[in-house]
C-alpha cells in the first residue's frame, strides 16, 4: 500500500518504537521564543544537563515584544526580564538568536520560512501551536508544550504516538476576492474546532496547488483551530522556487539533490487516509467569524445561525450579536492586519491594492504589524508603506502584537476588531475585546468603510 506525505516524513524520523507505547521521533529543527522557553532552560539547569544540538535551534523574540520604539528599553519590567532571559539562555547555550531589532527578527512562523530554515521533509517543533504553519512546505511541524521544549533541548527528540491521517481536498475555482484565509475559515466553519484532534491533516486539490507559499502558510497555520496538531501540503515547484536562494536553503548541487528527494515526498496515489473531507471551491466566499471560536464562521453576507446550544448562546452574549443577525454594516473601530496567519508581504500587497488612493474611516484605528523585519523592509521597498500611511493606517514594528495582546497592543473592552489573526477567543485581543476573524482584504475594506462591507460588491462597484 502507498504512503502518505505524512507517513513518509514521519517514518524517516522514527528512532525507536517503545513496546506498547510511543515512538521516539527525531527533530530536525527547533524554533524557540521568549514565552515558552525559559522554564525549559530552567529545567536543564536544575538537572545539570546541556542542550544536545544547539546548531539545530533558532530563537527569535516575538510574542511579548513592543511594536513601537523597539530601539528603546522595554518599559514593562516582566517583559524586559523575559527577553533578557532569552538572550542570556541563548548566549549560554550557543543558540542563534534573532532578537529585537535584528534584521532577521520576526514572528517565528514568518521569519523561519523566509530565511529558508523551513524545508520539505523535515520535522520541526516550537512551543507555539501555530507551528503547523511550516507544514505548507511538506514539513511535519507542530506545536509543543514547554516540557517538550525541554525534552528536545535534552535529546533532539520527542516521545510521541503517531497521529491518524486526515485529508481535506478542495477542488474547483475560487471566486474573485476569496483568499486562502477564507478557504481555511470556511473549512473550519464546516468541520468544527475538534474535527482534526488526534490527526495530522493534508490539504490537497487544485485550490492548494494553485496557492502561493504565503497562502499555503495561512491555511496550514490554522490547522490547529480545527484541532489538528499539524497540516501539510505536498511540496511542488512553487515550494522549490520559494526556497531557492534563501539564506539557510541548500545551495548549488546540494539544492538539486534536496529537490530530487523532496519530489519523492507527495502522497502516493494508492495511499489511504483515516478520514477524508471534500469541498467545492465554488461554495467558498469571503468569511467572517461571529462567535468566540474559529469554527463559528459565516459567509460575509450570511446570517448568524438562529439558535444553538449553551456555548453558542454564551458566545453571542459575549459578542453582543443576536441569532439570525447579519454582520454587514456593523460599525467597527479597530482593524488589525498582522499575526503569523496573515502578516506576510502578499497579505499587505492585497490590502494595499484595495487601500491605494482611499483613506480610512475616521472612527477606525487601523494597525498594520508586519510579520518580520524583512517584510517591513519589503513594505518600504515596494512603496506600500507610503500607501498605508497616506490612507491613515498605523504601521508598527514586527511582532505577534494584538493577536494575543501580551504587549500593549490591546483592543479595548467591548470594542469589535476585524482581525486577520487566528483566534477569536474571549479576551484574546484584550479583556472584553470582541474579535471578528477575516482576510486581509476584508480587514482593509472594513478600515476604509468604518463598518463591515461586502468586499465582492465594493470592488465590482
Amino acid at each position, binding site marked *: 500500500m502507498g504512503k502518505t506525505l505524512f507517513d513518509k516524513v514521519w517514518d*524517516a524520523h522514527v*528512532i*525507536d518504537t517503545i513496546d506498547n*507505547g*510511543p515512538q*521516539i521521533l*527525531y527533530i530536525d529543527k527547533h524554533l524557540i521564543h521568549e*514565552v515558552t522557553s*525559559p*522554564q525549559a532552560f*530552567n*529545567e536543564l539547569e536544575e*538537572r545539570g*544537563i546541556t542542550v544536545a544540538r544547539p546548531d539545530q535551534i533558532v530563537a527569535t523574540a516575538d*510574542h*511579548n515584544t513592543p511594536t513601537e520604539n523597539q530601539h528603546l528599553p522595554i518599559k*514593562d519590567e*516582566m*517583559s524586559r*526580564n*523575559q527577553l533578557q532571559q532569552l538572550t542570556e539562555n541563548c548566549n549560554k547555550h550557543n543558540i542563534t538568536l534573532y532578537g529585537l531589532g535584528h534584521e532577521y527578527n520576526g514572528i517565528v512562523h514568518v521569519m523561519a520560512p523566509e530565511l529558508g530554515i523551513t524545508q520539505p*521533509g523535515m520535522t520541526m517543533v516550537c*512551543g*507555539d*501551536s501555530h507551528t503547523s504553519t511550516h507544514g505548507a512546505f511538506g514539513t511535519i511541524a507542530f*506545536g*509543543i*508544550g*514547554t*516540557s*517538550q521544549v*525541554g*525534552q528536545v533541548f*535534552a*535529546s*533532539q*527528540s*520527542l*516521545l510521541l*504516538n503517531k497521529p491518524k491521517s486526515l485529508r481535506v481536498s478542495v477542488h474547483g475555482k475560487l471566486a474573485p476576492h476569496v483568499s486562502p484565509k477564507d478557504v481555511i475559515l470556511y473549512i473550519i466553519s464546516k468541520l468544527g*474546532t*475538534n474535527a482534526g*484532534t488526534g490527526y495530522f491533516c493534508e490539504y490537497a486539490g487544485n485550490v492548494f496547488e494553485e496557492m502561493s507559499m504565503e497562502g499555503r502558510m495561512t491555511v496550514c497555520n490554522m490547522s490547529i483551530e480545527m*484541532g489538528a*496538531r499539524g497540516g501539510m501540503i505536498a511540496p511542488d515547484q512553487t515550494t522549490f522556487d520559494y526556497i531557492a536562494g534563501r539564506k539557510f536553503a541548500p545551495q548549488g548541487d546540494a539544492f538539486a539533490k*534536496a529537490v530530487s*528527494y523532496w519530489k519523492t515526498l507527495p502522497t502516493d496515489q494508492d495511499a489511504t487516509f483515516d478520514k477524508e473531507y471534500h469541498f467545492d471551491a465554488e461554495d467558498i466566499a469571503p468569511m467572517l467569524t461571529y462567535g468566540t*471560536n474559529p469554527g463559528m464562521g459565516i459567509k460575509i453576507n450570511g446570517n448568524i445561525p438562529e439558535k444553538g446550544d*449553551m*456555548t453558542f448562546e*454564551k458566545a453571542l452574549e459575549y459578542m453582543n450579536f443576536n441569532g439570525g443577525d447579519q454582520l454587514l454594516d456593523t460599525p467597527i473601530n479597530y482593524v488589525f492586519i498582522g499575526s503569523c496567519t496573515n502578516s506576510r508581504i502578499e497579505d499587505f500587497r492585497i490590502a494595499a491594492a484595495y487601500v491605494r488612493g482611499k483613506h480610512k474611516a475616521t472612527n477606525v484605528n487601523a494597525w498594520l504589524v508586519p510579520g518580520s523585519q524583512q517584510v517591513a523592509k519589503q513594505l518600504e521597498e515596494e512603496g506600500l508603506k507610503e500607501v498605508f500611511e497616506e490612507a491613515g493606517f498605523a504601521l508598527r514594528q514586527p511582532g505577534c502584537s494584538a493577536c*494575543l495582546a*501580551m504587549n500593549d497592543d490591546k483592543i479595548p473592552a467591548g470594542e469589535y476588531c476585524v482581525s486577520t489573526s487566528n*483566534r477569536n*477567543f*474571549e*479576551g*484574546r485581543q484584550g*479583556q*472584553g475585546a470582541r474579535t471578528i476573524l477575516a482576510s486581509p482584504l476584508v480587514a482593509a475594506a472594513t478600515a476604509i468603510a468604518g463598518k463591515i462591507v461586502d468586499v465582492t460588491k465594493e470592488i465590482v462597484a
Partner: protein
Amino acid sequence: MEKFIKLISTAVPLPIENIDTDQIIPARFLKATDKKGFGDNVFRDWRFTKDGTLDASFPINNPQYAGAQILVAGDNFGCGSSREHAAWAIVGYGFKVVISSFFADIFKGNALNNGLLPIQVTPEFLKELLAGIEANPELPITVDLEKQVVDTAFEKAEFDIDPYKKVCMLNGYDDIDFLLSKKNEIEAFEKERTIF
C-alpha cells in the same frame, strides 16, 4: 513530577464547551519565567468581575466546591494555544484531575507531563456526572489510575491512558529521563541519516 496513584475528592463542574487555554490562563499572565504562581490567575477573566472582585456565580468560586481536586468540564477542553502555563495554572490552583468528554491534543500532553490526569469519558457519563455533582456538591469521586476507573456512588467508568504515560504517572517519571537513556540510539540515528 509528583506520583499519581489514586484520588478521592469532590469536583467542580464547569459545563462549558471548547474551553481554550486563553480562558484557562490569559496571555497577559505569561510573562513569568518560572512555573510558579499561575494558579492565582487560573480562569482569571471568568473568576473575577471587571472591577477585580471574585464573581460568586462562577463555579470555582462557589464555597460549596471548596477544596475540590477534580475539575469536570465540557467537551474539547484545552483547545487553542500550546501554552503549558494552562496546565501549571490548573495544577497550581490545586486540581489533580480534569474530566471531560474530549481533550485537545497539546493540552492533554502538557497535563500528563505535569502530573495532572486528563480523563476522557463518554458524553453520557459526563452529563450524568455533572448532574450528580449539581445534585450533591459533596459527591465523592474516586479516580483509580492503576485500575483506570472513575467511580462515584452511582456510576462507574473505565478510561483509557497510554500505557507508557500510565507508568510515568504512577511512578512520577518524566520523558526527559527516558529520552536521555536513549542517547546512544539517538546518536546512531543521526549518523545514519543523509538528509539535513
